[in-house]
C-alpha cells in the first residue's frame, strides 16, 4: 500500500512538467498578444513603439525556448513570476484567492454528501412510491439545469424578491448559501441517482439474500450491509465532483461577486495574463491528481480486493 502511494506520488512531477510545457506552448501558439491586451487595458493606442516597450517589459521579446526555460527555472524555486496586469507575484495572488474557492468547494461537497446520501437511500427503499418519484423528478430537474441559470434564478428569488439572503460578496455564512447551492445542485443530483442505483443493485445481490436467510433484521441488512457497500462507488464520484465544483466555482464566483480564484483566473484569461494562467492550471492539476490519489487510497481502504491487488503490483 505504502509503495503504491509513493509510486503514485512520484508521478506528480513528470505530469506537472508535461502539463506546464503543453500549457506554455498552447498559450503562445494562440494569436493573442498580452502586450496588446496590456495597452488596451491602459487606453494606450497600440503603436509599434508602444507594443515593443510593452513586450520588452513583459519579457515577450525573447524566443519561446528561452522564455520557457527561464520560467521553469524560477518555477521550481517557487517563483511563478509576476502578473502582467497587477505586477504582483502570481503565487501570492492565487494563494490569496484560493482559500475562498476552497471554502465554497468544501461546503458544496459537504452539502452534496449530506443531502444526496439520505435522498438516494429513501428513493431506493421506497422504489416506485411517491418519495422515489419526487427524488427522481428533483434529480432530473437538477441535472438539466445549467448552473449559471440556476444562480440567477436563486439570486432573483432569494435576494431580490424575498430579500432573505445577500446577493453578492463575501461575509457571513449567509453569503455562502446561494453560491454553494448553485455549485452543488448538479453533483447532488448525480450522487442521489448513483446511490439509489447502487442500493437497488446491492439489495438484489446474493450476500443480502444470505444475510436475510441468517435471520438478520431488515434494519441491519440495509443499514450495515447494503448502505456501506453502496457508498463505495460514491467515493469515486466525489473525486469527479471536485473537478465539477471548481468548474462551477468559476460561474458562481462571477454571478455572486465572490472573490475566489476562479473569477481571478477568468479575468486572467480575458487579459492574457500568461503567468497567472500557467500557475493556475498547474495548481489545479496538482489538486486533481492529488484528489484522484486520495480517492484511490480511500477505495483501497474500503475494498480489500483493491488493496491486495495494489500491493501485488
Amino acid at each position, binding site marked *: 500500500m505504502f509503495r503504491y502511494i509513493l509510486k503514485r506520488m512520484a508521478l506528480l512531477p513528470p505530469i506537472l512538467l508535461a502539463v506546464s510545457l503543453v500549457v506554455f506552448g498552447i498559450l503562445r501558439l494562440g494569436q493573442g498578444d498580452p502586450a496588446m491586451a496590456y495597452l488596451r487595458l491602459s487606453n494606450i493606442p497600440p*503603436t509599434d513603439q508602444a507594443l515593443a516597450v510593452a513586450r520588452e517589459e513583459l519579457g515577450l521579446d525573447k524566443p519561446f525556448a528561452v522564455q520557457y526555460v527561464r520560467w521553469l527555472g524560477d518555477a521550481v524555486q517557487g517563483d511563478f513570476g509576476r502578473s502582467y496586469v497587477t505586477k504582483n507575484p502570481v503565487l501570492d495572488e492565487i494563494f*490569496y484567492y484560493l482559500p475562498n474557492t476552497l471554502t465554497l468547494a468544501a461546503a458544496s461537497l*459537504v452539502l452534496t454528501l449530506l443531502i444526496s446520501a439520505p435522498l438516494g437511500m429513501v428513493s431506493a427503499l421506497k422504489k416506485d412510491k411517491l418519495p422515489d418519484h419526487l427524488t427522481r423528478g428533483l434529480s432530473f430537474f437538477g441535472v438539466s439545469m445549467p448552473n449559471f441559470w440556476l444562480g440567477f434564478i436563486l439570486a432573483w428569488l432569494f435576494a431580490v424578491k424575498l430579500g432573505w439572503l445577500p446577493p453578492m*460578496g463575501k461575509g*457571513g455564512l449567509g453569503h455562502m448559501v446561494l453560491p454553494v447551492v448553485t455549485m452543488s445542485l448538479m453533483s447532488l443530483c448525480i450522487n442521489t441517482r448513483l446511490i439509489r442505483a447502487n442500493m437497488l443493485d446491492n439489495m438484489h445481490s446474493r450476500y443480502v439474500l444470505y444475510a436475510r436467510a441468517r435471520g438478520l433484521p431488515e434494519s441491519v441488512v440495509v443499514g450495515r450491509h447494503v*448502505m*456501506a457497500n453502496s457508498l463505495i462507488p460514491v467515493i469515486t464520484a466525489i473525486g469527479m465532483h471536485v473537478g465539477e465544483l471548481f468548474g462551477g466555482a468559476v460561474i458562481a464566483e462571477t454571478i455572486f461577486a465572490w472573490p475566489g480564484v476562479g473569477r481571478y483566473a477568468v479575468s486572467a484569461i480575458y487579459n492574457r495574463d500568461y503567468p497567472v494562467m500557467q500557475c493556475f492550471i498547474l495548481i489545479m492539476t496538482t489538486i486533481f491528481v492529488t484528489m484522484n490519489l486520495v480517492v484511490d487510497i480511500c477505495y483501497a481502504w474500503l475494498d480489500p480486493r483493491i488493496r491486495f491487488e495494489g500491493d501485488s503490483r
Partner: protein
Amino acid sequence: MRMLILSSWLLTAFLIFSPLMAHHAVASPPEGEGVLVYSWNSNVGPLNPHLYSPSQMFAQAMVYEPLVSYQADGTVAPWLATSWEVSEDGREYIFTLREGVTFSDGEPFDAAAVKKNFDAMFLNHERHHWLELMNQLHEVEEAGGEAVTVIDEHTVKLTLKDPYYPILQELALIRPVRFLSPAAFPESGDTSEGIKAPIGTGPWKVVEMVKGEYDVFERNEAYWGGSPAMKHLVVKVIPDSNARAVAFDTGEIDLIYGSGGHGGGQLGLDTFQRYQQMGAVKTAVSPPFATRAMALNTNCFPTNELAVRRAILHAVNKQAMVEHIFLGVEPQADTLFAPSMPYCDLGLTPFEYDADASAKLLDEAGWTLEQGAEYRTKDGKTLALDLCFVGNDALQKSVAEVIQGDLRKIGVQANLVGEEMDSFLSRQKSGEFGIIFGDTFGPPYDPHSFCSSMRVPSHADYQAQLGLPMKEELDEKIGQVLVTVDEKERQDIYEHILTTLHEQAVYLPLTYMTSIMVHRPELEGASFGPTKQEIPFETMEKK
C-alpha cells in the same frame, strides 16, 4: 467500520480546508448614511498617477488633479493652474499655480512638486511615447534644454519642441500628467518602480483596499474646491453586469454609471431599458462621448472605389439599428466626430439612408446585378468584402449582421469575419480588412489625438485612408493643424481634413457612444462628467 473510515476521511478533508477558510478575517466596508456605494469590474489598483493598467482611470481622477481641466463644451478651464500665458511662438507655457493647495498628507502643492512629478515622468518617457505632449517636452530635455522650469514657488514654465496646440487638452488627461505628493515618491524618485501611497490633491483619498472585494475612499476634508457631499465612497468589485443589476435591486449598491452593453460595460442595454421603463428609479443617458464608427478600406478591392464607398454609406439603415440594437440609448451618428466636439461643427451633409441612391451609384459605376443573381458583378468580379468585428462582442456582432443584411439588399456581399480581440486589433494594424469597427477616442482626445493617429501606420485609420489620392496631403495638414498657433487657421485646416474624409466616404459613423446612469431618487446631484472616465462623485448626495 467502513462508515467510520469514510467519516474520518470527511473529517480530514474538513481539517485541511478549515484553516484555509480562516485565512482572512471577514472584512466589511463602511455602511449607512454618508456612504455612497458604486461598483466596478475590478479593484481600482495601486493608483500610481504616472502609470496605467491596473490603475482604474475613474479612481485616478478622484485622487489626482490636472493643471487644467477639460470642460463639457470642449474648452479647457483653470484647475491647479489658475492661469497661463503662451509665448508668441507657441512653444512656452507659463502656468500660475493655485495657492493654498495641499496634498491630502499636508504637503504643499507648489512649483517644486510639479517639477518633481514631471521629472519622474521623463524617467519613464518611453511608456508615455503615445502622448505627443510628453514627446514634445522630453525632446527638449534630450537636446540639453529644460522642459520644466521653476520660476518661483507658484509659477512653472513648460517648454515644447514645437508649438503643439493640444498641449492643454493633453494636460487635462487623467494620466500620466497628474500630481503625486512629493512625500509619496520612492527614494529613487522613479515612480515607475512604485509609489509609497496614492496621495494627491483631489477631493477623495484612499483609506482601504480589499483585494477582490472592495475599495474605500474618504472625502478629503482639506480639499481646496470644497469637500464632497458624502463622507465615504465604497467601490465594490462586481465583474458581471447581471450581478450588478441584482446588487442594485437589493440595495447593495446605490449607483450604476458607465458605458452600457455587456462585457466591459456596466449594464446590459436591455436591463437599462427595463430600468428606464420602471419609473421607480432614475435613469439618464449622457451626451455623446465618442463615435462608434467603421472604417472602409480605400486601399483594397472593392472599397477602393469611391462610388462603392458612397453606396455603402447610403445603404445602412442606422435608424433601425439605433432602435433595435442600441434600444435608443445611443443616438445616430452622421459624421466621424459629433458636432459638439471642438472644431467639428461643420454642417456636413449626412449620407441619408437611401437604398435607391446606393443602387444608382453602383449602376453608374458599372456594377450590375444579373438577372436572378444575388450580388453585383463587374468584369467577372463579385462585389464582395470582408466585414471584420470582435467575435465575442455581442453588440458588434449584431451590428455587423444588420449591415450585412442592408448591403445584401443593394447587391453587395459582406463576409462576416468575427475574431477574438487581439486578432481583430492585428487586422486594424495590418490593414487586412474591407470594413472594420473602430471607435474614436472621445474627449479630450477628439479630434486632435484621433487625427494625429491617422498618420501612424499601425493604426486602422491610416490603413483605411492609404488608398486616398490625397492621403499625403491629409497627413501634412494634420501635422500642420497640431502646431498652428492661429485659432482661425486651425479651424480651417480641421474643416479641410474632416470634409475631405467625409466626402471621400472613408468612415461609416454608426452611433455616438454614451454613458448610462441608474440610481434611486434618494441620490441627488448625480450628473455626467465632461469625459467618459471622470465620474463627478463629489456632487452626489444620498438624502
